[in-house]
């Protein structure tokens, strides 16, 4: 099967979720990558290490314009069978456009490679992570949007060939005016391997210092529960749960979050969950791998110290 992977670039670098998508594509078949913007040829050739054999780049597109990019991807997808996107911000923006334009059936939030023993079946999370569905794509062309953090990327020394690619992308009625960076910088929540999250148990926004310190020490992203975002203690983009962001880190540490079913829906893709709560009856303990019953204001500083000690001994 021939595969095309759309890879978004971010400040000249190929996004982590896109690296995963390339690796995923290469497990399905001969993989070509399509990307755009100002990325070094050496960085593009290096995508071979994730499994790409060829990289197509369009340097005339310099900003994310979904109308033009979906036409670009469609043009590049003419003779391929499977088109893969990362289900990140840019993937959500153009993947379904491309699918509709190509008359291709689409599965988004894919968690597995396609099972082709009886059709083309892909497992995906449904009901906000509370269940999985095995979805069959019945069309000739197939579009897959891969859930970030759902596969392990292996790299090799291979290099990809790089070619410029152009297509008739028409005019766009959309223009990008401004980018507003989120405050605090740090690790991107949906990409993060480690997430430190806190809820109402912290009693006030002024108490987030220790959560940020723990996250900084660990190289983790920070997150929060819905009530905390709703009352304005933390920004909305940190809200993890059914109606917020869904995350799938290796480690999710929840501090002072009771673990309502809506919150669990956003985090139950995490590999390991640690819950710190004063209430031994908090429902989160039922979903957790490791639990600590105790006051966050005592436990978290101890955890920071313990992690610092561990880090010093291991690095």
């Amino acid at each position, binding site marked *: 099967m021939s595969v095309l992977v759309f890879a978004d670039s971010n400040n000249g670098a190929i996004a982590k979720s896109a690296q995963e998508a390339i690796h995923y594509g290469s497990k399905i078949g001969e993989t070509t990558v399509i990307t755009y913007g100002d990325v070094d040829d050496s960085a593009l050739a290096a995508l071979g290490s994730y499994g790409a054999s060829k990289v197509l780049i369009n340097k005339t597109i310099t900003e994310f314009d979904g109308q033009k990019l979906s036409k670009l991807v469609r043009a590049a997808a003419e003779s391929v069978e499977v088109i893969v996107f990362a289900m990140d911000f840019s993937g959500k923006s153009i993947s379904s456009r491309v699918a509709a334009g190509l008359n291709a059936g689409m599965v988004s939030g894919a968690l597995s490679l396609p099972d082709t023993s009886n059709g083309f079946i892909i497992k*995906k999370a449904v009901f906000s992570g509370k269940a999985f569905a095995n979805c069959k794509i019945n069309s000739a062309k197939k579009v897959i949007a891969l859930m970030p953090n759902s596969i392990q990327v292996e790299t090799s020394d291979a290099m990809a060939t790089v070619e410029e690619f152009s297509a008739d992308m028409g005019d766009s009625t*959309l223009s990008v005016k401004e980018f*507003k960076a989120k405050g605090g910088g740090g690790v*991107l929540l949906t990409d993060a391997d480690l997430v430190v999250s806190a809820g109402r148990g912290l009693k006030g926004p002024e108490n987030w210092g220790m959560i940020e310190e723990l996250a900084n020490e660990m190289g983790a992203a920070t997150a929060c529960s819905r009530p905390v975002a709703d009352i304005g203690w933390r920004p909305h983009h940190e809200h993890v749960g059914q109606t917020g962001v869904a995350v799938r880190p290796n480690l999710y540490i929840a501090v002072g979050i009771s673990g309502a*079913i809506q919150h669990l829906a956003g985090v139950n893709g995490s590999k390991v969950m640690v819950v710190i709560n004063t209430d031994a009856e908090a429902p989160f303990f039922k979903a957790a791998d490791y639990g600590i019953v105790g006051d966050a204001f005592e436990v978290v500083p101890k955890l920071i110290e313990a992690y610092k000690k561990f880090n010093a001994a291991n690095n």
Partner: protein
Amino acid sequence: MKILVCISKAPDTTAKISFTDGDTKFNEAGVQFIINPYDEWYALVRGLELKEANNGTVTTISVGGPDYDPIIRKALAIGADAAVRIDAQPTDSYQVASEIANYAKDNGYDMVLCGKETIDYNGSQVGGMIAELMDLPYVSLAVKLEVNGTIATIERDVQGGTEVVEVSGAFVLSASKGMAEQRIPNMRGIMQARTKPLTVVPASGSSAMTEVVSYELPPAKTACKMVDAEDMDELISLLHNEAKVI
């Protein structure tokens, strides 16, 4: 200003998820259905705010059977002026998007608003597909929408921040958290909703390109291992040596 808002039916966020018929169907027994929260709290309410400020109309559109009518009446109670239900069982995003696009393309809407995803199938596909099928720009994961004449200024979530985009003319948007605040229907709205038009139109016969062959529930969690609150070195050691995540 003519605004079309796409409304989908979804199980309540607290619903217990289980399956029947050999794990091929969602078990609806005892499940309360609601308007998909992203469609209601963000797309619909922002549409209503714009309609009120600009003397426009809000029509909701859904693809579904008569079982959709209660949630459609709720959308009318919240303030939509009229509702359209395309009479077909929704099977996949492509079929739903094609039905909506086929209806919308001849009706001159200034904007089509959707929620960013449904909380059952989590596809995040319908908005982009409608845009493609109507050849309109699509702005995904929007958190802010202002309209000034024929220019819409939209802020959307992107990697590491938000991006402000301007669109001239009609567009399709998917709404994310932050776009508006939930509205609770009042008694007057509920009474008025009974007499507002809910038009049922036949489907154009678009067919699905994907199907769910089976469902699975996640494996049961093993019991939580409790760690002494005084002994965080033990937790770090477990995370390093046993769970191998740090």
